[in-house]
């Protein structure tokens, strides 16, 4: 009898300890105000054309960006397009993170991140696998998280094509993203690592900051499609290769070498300054 009781207790203890792969260490849920003390001119008014500084892009990305015409965003198909999961952190929007709790185990099984102009973005913590590569790709992608100490590391796949910067720099649907959510008291710092075999030569890493903001509420953002520009139905705004007259405007305005503004992995590293000075 006693032996059975001990066995039962042992089994129960093991079950509790083993069934907690997603045990939350830190609560990220709450209202987070975005702090745009980095790259504010790019993030609020929007990036200038031809500004690819410090982004490890390849020539294919430069060609796509040079073909991009901002008027593209007046197309009906583009007007309500949300920012993708990798870009939205860097947008000018407040953030709400909510948690989904298993009613029995009381474990957090998912966080949901939502911004203005975004779709709901769940990050699953319940150990589920990512779907087949052939599963649909979405703006939010498919995200799973696991704890590394107090840091939540998130793997994002299944993203639709998006952009690295809102001036035409593309990010392909083959890209994957890793995120590290770090909470330091009332500050949230999120590191995003974008790996894109199509448009990047190295992972593109950024860190973005938010601050806990108790009186904030992310408002709804209903979006309606309207006819913004009268143009033939089959016309898509673009520039043909070599025809974009705006690609050097940014370099001229800020007295920077055009080579630097064209981006590339080399421009991310401190030693690139010697090239800038030599010009």
């Amino acid at each position, binding site marked *: 009898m006693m032996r059975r009781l001990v066995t039962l207790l042992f089994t129960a203890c093991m079950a509790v300890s083993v069934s907690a792969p997603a045990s939350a260490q830190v609560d990220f849920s709450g209202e987070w105000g975005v702090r745009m003390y980095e790259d504010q001119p790019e993030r609020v008014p929007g990036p200038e054309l031809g500004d690819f500084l410090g982004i490890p892009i390849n020539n294919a990305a430069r060609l796509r960006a040079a073909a991009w015409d901002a008027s593209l965003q007046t197309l009906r198909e583009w007007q309500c397009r949300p920012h993708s999961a990798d870009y939205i952190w860097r947008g000018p929007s407040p953030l709400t993170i909510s948690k989904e709790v298993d009613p029995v185990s009381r474990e957090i099984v998912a966080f949901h991140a939502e911004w203005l102009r975004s779709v709901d973005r769940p990050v699953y913590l319940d150990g589920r696998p990512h779907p087949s590569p052939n599963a649909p790709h979405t703006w939010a992608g498919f995200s799973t998280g696991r704890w590394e100490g107090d840091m939540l590391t998130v793997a994002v796949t299944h993203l639709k094509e998006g952009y690295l910067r809102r001036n035409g720099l593309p990010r392909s649907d083959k890209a994957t993203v890793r995120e590290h959510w770090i909470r*330091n008291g009332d500050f949230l710092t999120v590191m995003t690592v974008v790996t894109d075999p199509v448009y990047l030569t190295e992972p593109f890493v950024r860190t973005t900051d938010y601050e806990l903001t108790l009186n904030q509420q992310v408002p709804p953002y209903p979006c309606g499609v309207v006819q913004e520009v009268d143009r033939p139905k089959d016309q898509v705004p673009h520039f043909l290769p070599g025809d974009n007259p705006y690609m050097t405007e940014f370099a001229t305005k800020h007295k920077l070498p055009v080579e630097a503004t064209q981006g590339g992995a080399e421009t991310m590293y401190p030693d690139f300054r010697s090239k800038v000075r030599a010009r």
Partner: protein
Amino acid sequence: MTRGVAGVAAILVVVGTGTAFAQQPPVAPSARAQAPVDLTGDWVSVVTEDWRWRMVTPPKGDYASVPLNAEARKVADAWNPTRDAASGEACRAYGAAAIMRLPGRIRIAWEGDAVLRVDTEAGSQTRLFRFGAAAAEASSAPTWQGRSLAQWQPSGGRRGAPPSGGSLRVVTTEMRSGYLRKNGVPYSSSATVTEYYNRANEPNGDSWLVVTTVVEDPRYLTGRFVTSSHFKRLGAGGTWTPTPCETG
């Protein structure tokens, strides 16, 4: 019988030894021994953000993104790099509130068991993060790097599991007034800098140091100036090229 006596004697020796140990005051492990994360090594800043304000010296009056008050803007508008150089103030942009934002490599190493030392290529500066009793040493005159008190923040354990990993919190005060950006955007000697050092590892073998910096300055800032900078870990024996402080 003899074996029985010997066994009892052995037990008594063990118990006695244990008692002797218990009577000694416990020795607290050093900050170095307690480190929940290894931050040491050479790291290079990867400038994918604020490039225009970090990789080159921006023009006078370009203080976009910084929450300055009117007095600070006046100071920034009066920036004179020639005067700074002539008056021995060339390191104003290399103080603790800005140094981690400057492009370059940094080298982190222990100096003893209670001080974490950070050397920077940019401006050839040295920061000393002091833990525990080392932090209580006598204060001296303000310096560019100020006085930094460090504290580990171990991750919380869960359901009896021991903590795994953690981060470093550093609070710096007693700084000379300096520049948040090389073009004379000011912070005052009343500023406080709070930093959080976290480390993240990637499947491709890259290791990253993420430094979140919060600058509070009752004289020049209207709010907390928050930035985060990232550094990629370098292999041993790599390039190390310290440079002097430069104005302009």
